[in-house]
C-alpha cells in the first residue's frame, strides 16, 4: 500500500496546452484517450522530464512539484519509473547491466521481479538481440528495480502480437498486485484498459474528460464518443461461488449469474464484458429456452442509436447496470418505455471474461 499520489498540472508548451487533475489510486490506472490527447505530455510532466506551467504533484505523500512553493524535484529524485514507448534499454549494456544500472532494491528483490516477468534467462543478452516484448518487460523490471513509487508505462502493448499483448497485460496486472506500486498505463486501446485497469482517466485534446472506476468510465457516454467506440456494453464484476454440471455459478452483486466453467477457482473475482448486442429482452420468463441467465430488470432509458434501439437497464435485485441493443421492430412490439419491468436474457457463452483475480 502506498501513500497518496495526486496530480494537478497545467501545461502550455509550444503548440500544446492542457490540464489534468486527479488522485491516483493503488492498482492499475489507465490513462486513455485518442492520439494527441496529451497522455505522453502528462506522463513526462509527472516524471519531471518537462516542466508544467503550474500545479502540484505529490507522489506517495511527497511533493515533487509545486509551482506556488517553487518546488521542482529533478527526475532522479522523484522515484518514478517511466517506461517510454520507444526502445529505451541502453544499447551498450547487457540486460543484467541495464537492470543493475540504478538498482536501489536488494539483489533478491530484483531477482524476484525478473523471475515474475519471465526474463531471468535473458540476463546475458545484449538489447539488440531481444524482441520488442522482451525489451519492454526488461524495461519494466529495470524501472521496478530502481525503487519506483509509481510506474508509468507508455503504450507498453504497442507493436506486440496478440499473444504477447495478452501476456504483457497479465504481467502488468500481476506486477501491480504483487508490488503494491500504483501503475499509470497509457493506452489508446479500450481493450487494453478493459483487461488491465481498475481505474481510468480519460483525456481528450489536452483536457481531462472523466476519471474514476473503470466500469464507470466505460459507462460514461463521453467515453464511447471520444474513443469512437461502437461495441456498447457493460463491464461487471462477479464472484465465483461454485460449480454445477459444467456451469460456473457466480454472484453479480447478489444475483446468481451463470458462466461456462473454465476452471476459475472458487472465490475468484472475474471481470466480464456483456455486449449490448448479446442481451435479449422478454416480457416474461420464456419457457423451454437454453439461455441460462434470465435477470428481472427495469428499463432506465431508451434511445435510438445507429440502426437500432439502445436500452439501459438496471437489474432489479441490486441496480447493477446492463445495456441492451435491439431492433426497432422488437422495441415497438414489446412497447418498451422507462420504468417498464422486463427479463434480460444473456447467453452464458456470449459473456466475455476480461480478467480473473484469484483470491490471495
Amino acid at each position, binding site marked *: 500500500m502506498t501513500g497518496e499520489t495526486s496530480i494537478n498540472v497545467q501545461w502550455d508548451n509550444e503548440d500544446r496546452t492542457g490540464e489534468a487533475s486527479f488522485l491516483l489510486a493503488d492498482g492499475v490506472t489507465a490513462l486513455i484517450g485518442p492520439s494527441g490527447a496529451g497522455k505522453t505530455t502528462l506522463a513526462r510532466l509527472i*516524471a*519531471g*522530464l518537462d516542466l508544467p506551467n503550474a500545479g502540484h504533484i505529490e507522489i506517495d505523500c511527497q511533493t515533487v512539484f509545486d509551482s506556488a512553493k517553487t518546488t521542482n524535484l*529533478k*527526475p*532522479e*529524485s*522523484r*522515484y*518514478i*519509473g*517511466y*517506461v*517510454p514507448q*520507444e*526502445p*529505451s534499454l*541502453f*544499447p*551498450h549494456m547487457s540486460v543484467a547491466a541495464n537492470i543493475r*544500472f*540504478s538498482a*536501489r532494491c536488494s539483489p533478491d528483490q530484483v531477482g524476484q521481479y525478473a523471475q515474475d516477468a519471465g526474463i531471468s534467462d535473458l540476463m546475458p543478452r*545484449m*538489447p*539488440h*538481440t531481444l524482441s520488442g516484448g522482451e525489451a519492454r518487460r526488461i*524495461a519494466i523490471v*529495470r*524501472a521496478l528495480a*530502481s*525503487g519506483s513509487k509509481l510506474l508509468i508505462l507508455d503504450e507498453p502493448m504497442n507493436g506486440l502480437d496478440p499473444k504477447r499483448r495478452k501476456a504483457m497485460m497479465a504481467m502488468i496486472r500481476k506486477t501491480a498486485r504483487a508490488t503494491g506500486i500504483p501503475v499509470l498505463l497509457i493506452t489508446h486501446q479500450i481493450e487494453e484498459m478493459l483487461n488491465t485497469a481498475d481505474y481510468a482517466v480519460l483525456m481528450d485534446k489536452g483536457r481531462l474528460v472523466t476519471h474514476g472506476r473503470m466500469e464507470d468510465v466505460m459507462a460514461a457516454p463521453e467515453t464511447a464518443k471520444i474513443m469512437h467506440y461502437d461495441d456498447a456494453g457493460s463491464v461487471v464484476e462477479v464472484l465465483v461461488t461454485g460449480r454445477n454440471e459444467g456451469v460456473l455459478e457466480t454472484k453479480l452483486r447478489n444475483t446468481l449469474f451463470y458462466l461456462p466453467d473454465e476452471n476459475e477457482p472458487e472465490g475468484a473475482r472475474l471481470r466480464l464484458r456483456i455486449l449490448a448486442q448479446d442481451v435479449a429482452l422478454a416480457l416474461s420468463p420464456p419457457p423451454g429456452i437454453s439461455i441460462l441467465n434470465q435477470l428481472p430488470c427495469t428499463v432506465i432509458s431508451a434511445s435510438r442509436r445507429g440502426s437500432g434501439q439502445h436500452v439501459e437497464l438496471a437489474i432489479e435485485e441490486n441496480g447493477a447496470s446492463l445495456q441492451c441493443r435491439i431492433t426497432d421492430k422488437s422495441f415497438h412490439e414489446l412497447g418498451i418505455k422507462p420504468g417498464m419491468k422486463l427479463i434480460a436474457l444473456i447467453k452464458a457463452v456470449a459473456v466475455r471474461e476480461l480478467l480473473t483475480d484469484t483470491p490471495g
Partner: protein
Amino acid sequence: MFTPAEMEALLLSIKVALWATVVSLPIAIAAAYGMARNQFPGKMIVEALIHIPLVVPPVVVGYLLLVTLAPSTSFGAWLQTIGLNPAFKWQGAAIASGLMALPLMIRSMRLSFEAEPHVYREVAATLGASAFKRFWRISLPLALPGILSGTALGFARAIGEFGATITFAANIPGVTQTLPLALYSAAQTPGGELVAARLALLCLFPAVFSLIASEWLARKARNRRGFG
C-alpha cells in the same frame, strides 16, 4: 633501414603528437559535450573561436602563440622564471600541434554526442542516475566511436602539423624538429632529395596506423551494440 637522425625525428614526432592528443582529448570531450547539450548566449562566438585554427593559416596560430608566450613578452618572461616556458621546446611543438588538432577532434565528437537519442539519458534520470552518471555511463560510451575517430583524426593532424610548430617552436634538430620539419629542411638542402623522400615515407606510418587502429576500435564498439 633508417638513419639515427630519421629515427630521432620519428620518435620526437610521435612523442609530440601523443602529448598533443592526450592533453587535447579531455578538453575536446568537454567542449564537444558542452556545445552539443547546451544553448547559451554567445554560443556562436565560442563556436567561431574553436574553429579559428581550422580556417586561418597555421602560421598565424604559431605567430599568435609566439606573441603571447615568447620569452620576450611579459607573460612569457614570467613563465621563463618558473621554468615553464614552452617556446622553442618540444612542449611548444606539442601545444602548437594540439591547438591545430583541437577543432577537428571537437567536430567529430560533437556530432557523436548530438546523435545520441535523448530517451536514454531521460530514462536514466528517472531511474535515479545523476547528471555525472548519465554522462559517464550513457553519453560517453555511446559517443565512443566518434571520440575514437576524432582522436585518430587529431593525432594524424598533430603528426602532420608544420606551420604553427615551426613558427612557435622553431626547427631545432633533436629538440623541436618533427618529421615534417625535417622533411622541409631536407628539401631545402641541395642534394637532400633522397632523404626528403625517405622522410615522406616515414610520415605515413603513424598517421595510417592511428586511422586503422581507431576504425578497428570504433567498429568493435558498434558491433557490440548491434549496428554499423
